[in-house]
């Protein structure tokens, strides 16, 4: 009894903590368009490598830029890139998954699922390497690389859930009513997957932020002048002995953003779909 209570309390706490962290992330990103404590691009060599103070809450970097302001501005890059990547991946992956489920015995299903297996063999970083090779580094290439890697995730999740919806009685009723496979997929199957896709989308968003930071760290993601947490860390790595505080805050920001979205996803899953709430799994 007490065990179940602890777990349940933990779960609803996940929704709250995740929601608050995500709200802070989105809030910081939006606010940075209107206001940051300092201009995040303003270089001031005399003020470089300062430790956190009342003037500069997170200190300044090797160009004297205000780290707190840069982190606020970096939130919008992270969020925008991850949203775009997950959006593209959903727009491609979900229809593929629906199609595979609608013709689960056919060649189409086989091709789609084999194609997915193949994409899984290309980790996002290698896709980014290939795209950068073609088009040079940049935010758009990072979006594309993360999106491509996420397509199979959405295709699989959609297919798996759609297959079980197809076995339900009301689908049979729709078929008897003479609706085609594609119309049933769009009108009856897809709406039943909405909750699942919201949850999966939230979790993939967190992975997208993590991936974007990594790509930017190695120089394959967001390029200057776009503010970026990953690039801040790359700068910090070279300044480690001189200004260790430069490495602390961008990493904390990434961790908090990813943690927040993950917890939100977990919390939403339990809240939206009690059927998925298998005790403590």
């Amino acid at each position, binding site marked *: 009894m007490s065990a179940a209570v602890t777990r349940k309390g933990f779960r609803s706490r996940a929704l709250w903590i995740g929601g608050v962290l995500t709200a802070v992330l989105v809030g910081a990103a939006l606010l940075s368009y209107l206001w940051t404590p300092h201009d995040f691009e303003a270089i001031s060599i005399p003020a470089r490598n300062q430790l956190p103070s009342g003037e500069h809450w997170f200190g300044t970097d090797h160009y004297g830029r205000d780290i707190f302001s840069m982190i606020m501005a970096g939130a919008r890059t992270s969020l925008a890139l991850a949203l775009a990547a997950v959006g593209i991946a959903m727009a491609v992956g979900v229809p593929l998954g629906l199609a595979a489920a609608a013709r689960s015995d056919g060649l189409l299903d086989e091709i789609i699922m084999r194609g997915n297996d193949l994409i899984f063999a290309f980790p996002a970083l290698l896709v980014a390497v290939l795209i950068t090779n073609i088009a040079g580094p940049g935010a758009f290439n990072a979006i594309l690389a993360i999106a491509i890697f996420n397509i199979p995730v959405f295709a699989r999740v959609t297919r798996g859930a759609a297959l079980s919806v197809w076995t339900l009685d009301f689908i049979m009723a729709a078929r008897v009513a003479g609706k085609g496979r594609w119309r049933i997929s769009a009108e009856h199957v897809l709406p039943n997957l909405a909750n699942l896709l919201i949850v999966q989308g939230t979790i993939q968003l967190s992975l997208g932020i993590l991936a974007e930071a990594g790509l930017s760290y190695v120089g394959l993601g967001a390029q200057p002048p776009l503010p970026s947490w990953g690039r801040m860390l790359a700068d*910090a*790595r070279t300044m480690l002995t001189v200004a260790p505080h430069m490495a602390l805050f961008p990493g904390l920001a990434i961790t908090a953003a990813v943690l927040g979205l993950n917890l939100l996803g977990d919390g939403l899953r339990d809240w939206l779909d009690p059927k998925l709430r298998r005790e403590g799994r």
Partner: protein
Amino acid sequence: MLRYALKRLISLAVSLLVASVIIFIAVEIVPGDPASYMLGLNAQPDTVAQLREELGLNVSPVERYVSWVWGMVQGDFGTSYTYRTPVAEMIWQRGQVSLPLALFALLISTAIAIPLGVIAAGRRGTGVDVGLSTATQFGIAVPNFWLGIMMVLLFSVSLQWFSAGGFPGWQAGFWLALKSLVLPAIALAVPQAAILTRIMRSSLLDTLGEDFMRTARAKGLSRNQALWRHAFRNALIPVLTIIGLQFSFLIAGGIIIEQVFYLPGLGRLVLQSINARDLIVVESVVMVLVFAVIVVNFAVDLAYAAVDPRLRRRV
């Protein structure tokens, strides 16, 4: 089993073939003329012509593709344009950093995750379980390269236990070389360990709910005996699959970690080659990495099917 293995082998071959075509198109065809791309904007026409000759660009793309693949089958990966050394040799040398790093990280992640997963499942719902669950949430959220930087700050800059980066080479002595891989391997391993701990926990919980567990308890085994003799081994099957999958993530994740610790591995080679526009190196190293991922997954599938005959029917 043989039939299953054969089917999987064909699908492995097809995957490799398609992957090689994708890589070839992405690297050699899309950027336009590779020779002028590699030499940059200010190249002299006769230098470009010379490089075209050297790269064999005067023949059709299909012939080039075939000779690239045929070369790789024979162990010839071409010659690097910037380093002027055979790519196969570079891959062999850099692989001596990347592969041990990935294996080391895998070892650490497994060594952390399996005991923690068992503890969490065994004390399900208690404070220990909730605490571990919270820890894994953090483990998943922390970017491994930031963890690496923080460890450099603590163990190299402050405590000076480890060097802040670089690799002395295996010829400098096994333990010295291994020591320089400790921090990178831990950084790579922690997020993977967090994921694996969760999977170990839920897999063990699933198994504990099975009928044969009740039978085991009914015949008089204690809770712990039943856990170790029956549940643990069965729960390990899905965990092994994930370990296999993680190996491929570790190979790719190594690219960033090698950059953090200035390790001369395959990942750093790829990044340097992109900057130097050394297309042949990019192409071949990406192919080798993708090859590794596909082959590891194939091996895991086979091992899985060997253990669990039910899976052989689903191909």
